[in-house]
């Protein structure tokens, strides 16, 4: 239960590679921050500098207002859950969970008591005498959690803790981690490359790319109003569709010539990108209000059960336009569809990939409506 403050944090490796470019972030007490990004974006490096496993090149890191830049990991009072769990293979579950306490000189009786209480909380009571290799993946994951919890640290750090589990178990453990974190109220930083995990777990989401923070905010805010094209394409599955557009008299002009009145902030005649999410493309009815329609051809269908993804193509365009149809939709490959979408669901990005819409104030309500 602590606050965490990163001020212009920088990490440069001896070989000159800069893994983190001046990262600023403050984490409130009890908050669960998820850092998400593709591999190589610096998210793991960031977590490891927080843990003290990597030195900080520049900037300041404070926990509860106390500068910890130079402290050893054990002195920072943090706990970390590793991707491969990093359980000590030769120790029992109880030994694994109690090892940090033992190193701190906590009396044996108290260790036993605290380990038992934590094991109870996680449903590991029966397994205390087992070795890690005798446990299933999910159980190992729980033991790794228990090892972190039993120390009652100031901050939890999670390094992709669910990526070694299968899909079903991942969903279940995701719920469990969220519930535990809320219940214990411990400030947490969680790193993942999986945008679904990120969206569902985060109080606030930090999207990183190339060692920089692209955007930070609540999951739905980022989804509804991505600040950059990168964020827009990273969050959401299937990914957002992008169409090359130009601007003309304050309107954006679609590849098929349609003009769309959007409050964009791009000089006349410049190239830009229009983004529309697959679920915002709907089949046009005759009485379409104020929207835009696109006539496309279905090239491939992917039945997902509840939904059906249609990979369609606008004449003369290279990119797919992915549409999310109902799972029981009767579409067939080669069929023509007329798609409509509303200007409120449009995102425009300039040539540098930055969001280029003027209305900051009203956008959120509209997008979330």
């Amino acid at each position: 239960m602590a606050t965490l403050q990163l001020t212009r944090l920088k990490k440069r490796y001896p070989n000159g590679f800069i893994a983190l470019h001046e990262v600023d972030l403050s984490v409130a007490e009890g908050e669960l921050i998820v850092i998400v990004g593709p591999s190589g974006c610096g998210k793991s490096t960031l977590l490891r500098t927080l843990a003290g496993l990597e030195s900080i090149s520049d900037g300041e890191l404070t926990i509860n207002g106390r500068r910890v830049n130079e402290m050893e990991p054990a002195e920072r009072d943090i706990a970390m859950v590793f991707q491969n769990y990093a359980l000590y293979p030769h120790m029992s579950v109880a030994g694994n969970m109690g090892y940090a306490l033992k190193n701190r000189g906590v009396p044996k009786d108290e260790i036993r008591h605290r380990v038992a209480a934590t094991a109870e909380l996680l449903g590991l009571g029966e397994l205390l005498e087992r070795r890690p290799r005798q446990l299933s993946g999910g159980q190992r994951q729980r033991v790794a959690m228990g090892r972190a919890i039993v120390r009652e640290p100031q901050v939890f750090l999670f390094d992709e803790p669910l990526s070694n589990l299968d899909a079903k178990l991942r969903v279940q453990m995701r719920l469990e981690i969220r519930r535990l974190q809320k219940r214990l109220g411990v400030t947490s930083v969680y790193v993942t490359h999986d945008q679904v995990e990120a969206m569902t777990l985060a109080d606030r989401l930090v999207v990183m790319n190339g060692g920089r923070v692209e955007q930070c905010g609540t999951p739905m805010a980022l989804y509804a109003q991505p600040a950059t094209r990168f964020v827009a394409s990273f969050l959401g599955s299937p990914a957002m569709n992008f169409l090359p557009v130009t601007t003309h008299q304050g309107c954006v002009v679609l590849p098929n010539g349609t003009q769309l009145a959007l409050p964009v902030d791009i000089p006349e005649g410049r190239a830009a990108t229009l983004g529309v999410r697959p679920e915002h493309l709907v089949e046009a009815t005759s009485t379409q209000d104020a929207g835009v329609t696109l006539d496309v051809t279905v090239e491939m269908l992917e039945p997902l059960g509840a939904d059906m993804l249609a990979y369609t193509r606008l004449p003369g365009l290279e990119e797919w336009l992915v549409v999310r149809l109902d799972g029981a939709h009767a579409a067939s490959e080669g069929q023509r569809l007329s798609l409509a979408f509303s200007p409120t669901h449009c995102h425009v990005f300039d040539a540098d990939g930055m969001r280029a819409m003027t209305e900051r104030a009203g956008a959120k309500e509209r997008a979330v409506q």
Partner: protein
Amino acid sequence: MRYQRLGLDLVSHLLLAAGCGLFFLPVWLAFTASTHSMSDLYTHIAPLWIGDVGLGNYAQLLSESVSGLNTGMLRLLFNSLVMATGIAAGKIVISVLAAYAIVFFRFPLRRLCFWLIFITLMLPVEVRILPTYEVVANLHMLDSYSGLILPLIASATATFLLRQFYLTIPPELVEAARIDGAGPWRFLKDILLPLSKTNLAALFVIMFIYGWNQYLWPLLVTTDASYMTVVVSLKRMLTTGDALVPWQDVTATAILAMGPPILVILLLQRYFVKGLVDAEK
């Protein structure tokens, strides 16, 4: 996952059988020779079955002092045991520390260190034997157990084998231990040594046998027969000048000399085999 049908099944089995013979025949011949009397051995060549003396030669060897030396066979065996144990234990301590430093610490001379240890691979005791002898003599360690043991202790091979094993330990384990507040020594004691138990047992066996079979160094460094080892005494028995070589004693000593290594293997076998086999699951 393996080739199962072979086509050359028969050939490979014949080769195997031949290989077994090649390995075991000499041991068997040595044993049968040790159960014959000397005169038998000089009238027949390579007896293939147990002779009429039975274990008599062994009883005689163990009770009397060895011909040409005023030391008993038991003393020789004890000397070999002390030397082999000392060398094996010393090598393991040195290797564990060296491999630990090389793998888990980042210090400026890590690369140099690696090369230095590597170079000792090409400097076995035989090559540096003369200067080493001089050093040991100056330190008055001739005819002592420490003189027998210390110069043979540095072991590049063991360091390399341990290093290879340490490199397979996931770095996250080290990091978890750091976060759990374990310093370098505690990590060594609580995590690394328990994890390398089987490897250490395997190394101990190999190094024990290496130490047991040392010949040239013990020969040089001991003049007092009460520090002589079994293997050296074997050679002594062969150089009898004009007298006939007592083959029944030689072979019996050879068989006796195989005893302690076999014993060590049997004792540590559980760990040893696991250390060698575990990669197979």
